[in-house]
């Protein structure tokens, strides 16, 4: 006797507690086991790239915050770097250091949010608030730096808007001294929890070839054991001056490239960011933070592509200039969009509960998908 089962079509999102914003999945499920989960993107499309063609080079900076509001420093930096390359502008050394400091703090904040929501998505509410508690302090620091807590608008074409405020360096170092033990506590609290490992290990395993084929970047790619970090491999800004490791997935809890590996890569990257920050805060030179850039910034006609290593991986900014005060075309290439493409392939045969884990482990941020 064979049991007849019926496929069920489920609509997950766009208003669903665990879809990290407004994502939608059309799930075909046989009971708890998914046959496929088709992502439906486009619920958060704000035409940011088109806006750039209308507001000009300087005016677009605040809009870049909205491309990825969880780590807006990187989008700021990407746009700034693209414009500088088009206009041939040299950023002062102190400006570059300020950028790196702000961006690395932002990376920690973003990863804290990611690992916190990972805990929440699999049912543990406590890690989230603990992660948010630490993130709040970073937000406080950044607020002091640039006056905003989420959409920073800190960087300018040619440097950063403001120098570090007096006493900020000591506060930042005090935070790092506080953060390192907290990081260990966080690990002891959740990372090695038996249920936590059971839920994450061997879920959503990505093999390296697939990851490269689907163009995964950042921690998702490094989770598969491949060492690829723009900061190391295509160095930009002042990153070559720092000594840091690129953590990769090791498959220590299950298969190489599973959700636990991606999670551990993020956990370890926070430690590396902390290392970079300590060096940057120690080595920061004196001088101006902003290069002289004309108010009416008109780069020569041409195009450029810059890549920054954002918290969600390789973020590409492609800008075409026609010599006027407005860019002719801007395109942002983001990690979350590539990750969304992979979800359908990965979700086959997983349980519904695992889809939530999978989305959280790929660290998909809704505004970054659609822009």
């Amino acid at each position: 006797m064979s049991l007849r089962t019926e496929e069920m079509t489920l609509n997950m999102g766009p208003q669903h507690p665990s879809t990290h914003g407004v994502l939608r999945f059309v799930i075909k499920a046989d009971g708890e086991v998914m046959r496929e989960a088709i992502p439906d993107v486009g619920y958060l499309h704000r035409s940011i790239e088109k806006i750039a063609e209308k507001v000009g080079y300087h005016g677009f900076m605040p809009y870049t915050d909205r491309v990825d509001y969880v780590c807006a420093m990187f989008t700021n930096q990407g746009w700034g770097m693209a414009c500088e390359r088009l206009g041939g502008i040299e950023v002062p050394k102190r400006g570059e250091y300020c950028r790196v400091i702000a961006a690395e703090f932002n990376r920690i904040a973003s990863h804290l949010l990611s690992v916190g929501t990972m805990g929440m998505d699999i049912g543990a509410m406590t890690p989230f608030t603990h992660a948010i508690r630490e993130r709040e302090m970073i937000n406080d620091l950044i607020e002091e730096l640039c006056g905003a807590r989420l959409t920073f608008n800190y960087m300018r074409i040619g440097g950063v808007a403001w120098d570090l405020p007096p006493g900020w360096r000591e506060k930042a170092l005090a935070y790092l001294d506080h953060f390192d033990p907290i990081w260990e506590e966080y690990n002891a609290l959740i990372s090695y929890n038996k249920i936590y490992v059971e839920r994450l290990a061997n879920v959503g395993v990505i093999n390296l070839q697939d990851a490269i084929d689907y163009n995964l970047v950042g921690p998702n790619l490094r989770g598969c054991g491949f060492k690829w970090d723009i900061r190391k491999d295509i160095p930009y800004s002042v990153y070559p001056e720092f000594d840091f490791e690129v953590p990769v997935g090791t498959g220590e809890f299950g298969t190489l490239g599973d959700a636990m590996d991606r999670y551990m890569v993020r956990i370890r990257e926070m430690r590396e960011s902390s290392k970079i920050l300590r060096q940057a805060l120690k080595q920061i030179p004196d001088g101006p933070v902003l290069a002289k850039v004309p108010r009416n910034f008109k780069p020569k006609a041409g195009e450029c592509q810059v890549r920054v290593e954002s918290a969600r991986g390789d973020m590409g900014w492609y800008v075409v200039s026609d010599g006027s005060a407005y860019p002719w075309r801007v395109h942002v290439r983001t990690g979350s969009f590539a990750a969304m493409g992979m979800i359908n392939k990965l979700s086959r045969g997983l349980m519904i509960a695992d889809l939530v884990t999978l989305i959280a482990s790929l660290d998909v941020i809704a505004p970054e998908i659609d822009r």
Partner: protein
Amino acid sequence: MQKLVDNLIASGAFGAHPPRDIIYAIAIFVFSLIVFLGIAFPFAGVVSWVERRVWARMQSRCGPNRVGPNGFLQWLADGLKHVCKEDLIPAESDETLFKMAPYLVILAFTLPWAVMPFSSDLILADLNVGILYMTSVTALTVVGVLMAGWASNDKWSLIGGIRSAAQIVSYEIPAGLSIFPVVLMTGTLSMQGIIKAQGWAPWTWFVFANPFTFIAANVLYISALAEGNRTPFDLPEAESELVAGFATEYSGMRYLFFFAAEWGNLFIIGAIITTLFLGGWQVPAVSSNPVVMNVLQLICFNVKVLFLVFVSMWVRGTLPRVRIDQLMSLCWKYLVPISFVDMVGTAVWMAIWPEGNWIAPWILMALFSAVIIVFLGRVLHYFRRSRMELYLSPTI
């Protein structure tokens, strides 16, 4: 309670020839009302407040602290709000079942209070099948939850309902089997009989009577958590997966019923374990006044139960949720065989030492204390390490 009514009748409080049946009926009604409105529902409400506060403290937030002292009246405010809300019934739902489901759940939560042994005299009905009655009526929940899941005509609700049914039915088995060792040792199913077979001191409790009962107590607690839909087994209402599970479509009063039952069930879980394994209301005979003794017993029973309730909140604040297949494999591959071994083991133990073994409780207590000391040491260690010393906010 029947004794009290009989005494009142005998003393002529209702006249010379009272209509016994009617007086009994009225007495049952009055006592049930006292238990439901005076104990069961306020308890569920207060537990919701306690849980939110305890949970908030674990998550380094404040929790509700505005309504009344320390937010104590929050549960009342929430309850009133829910009662005042519109009772929405989805257009495509099966209306009769949809309306009925919360009542079944609340029924499953209120019925066990009939055999709740608060003290040696404070028990509504000391049934001779007390513990059997308790486990069987709490299983009514599954009917209500399944009904809610089906009648909502929503796929998330349906998955929640089916998960709940699978979970509760599976975990009934280890829970039921874990009760057997105690029943074997006492030879009775009556709640009072089981408590009377134990003493006030920890070494006379059944949890330390032999290794098998010790394991059985733990298995029972885990299974009871699963039956009560508590973290780490809160799959039927897993927020991040199923929105709100079987309760997705409910609002207002009916939604409140589901959650009053969930919080109230914590007390019932604690009461079952306290009765079976932790000596129930047993206190040392310090007074010959029955009123003093009953009050002491009531306090003792409640303290033990509330401690177990606190432990379940603690677990909820600590652990993630398991996946459905892990949940099932935990039940069928581990808990069910273990509880069978417990049952047979207790029988063998009783055959070897019919009067009980005096050294086993002490060894078990020593082991248990060692575990507790190590655990508390670690907790204190992290407490000291995690003390917040840094305040960076520029605005404060």
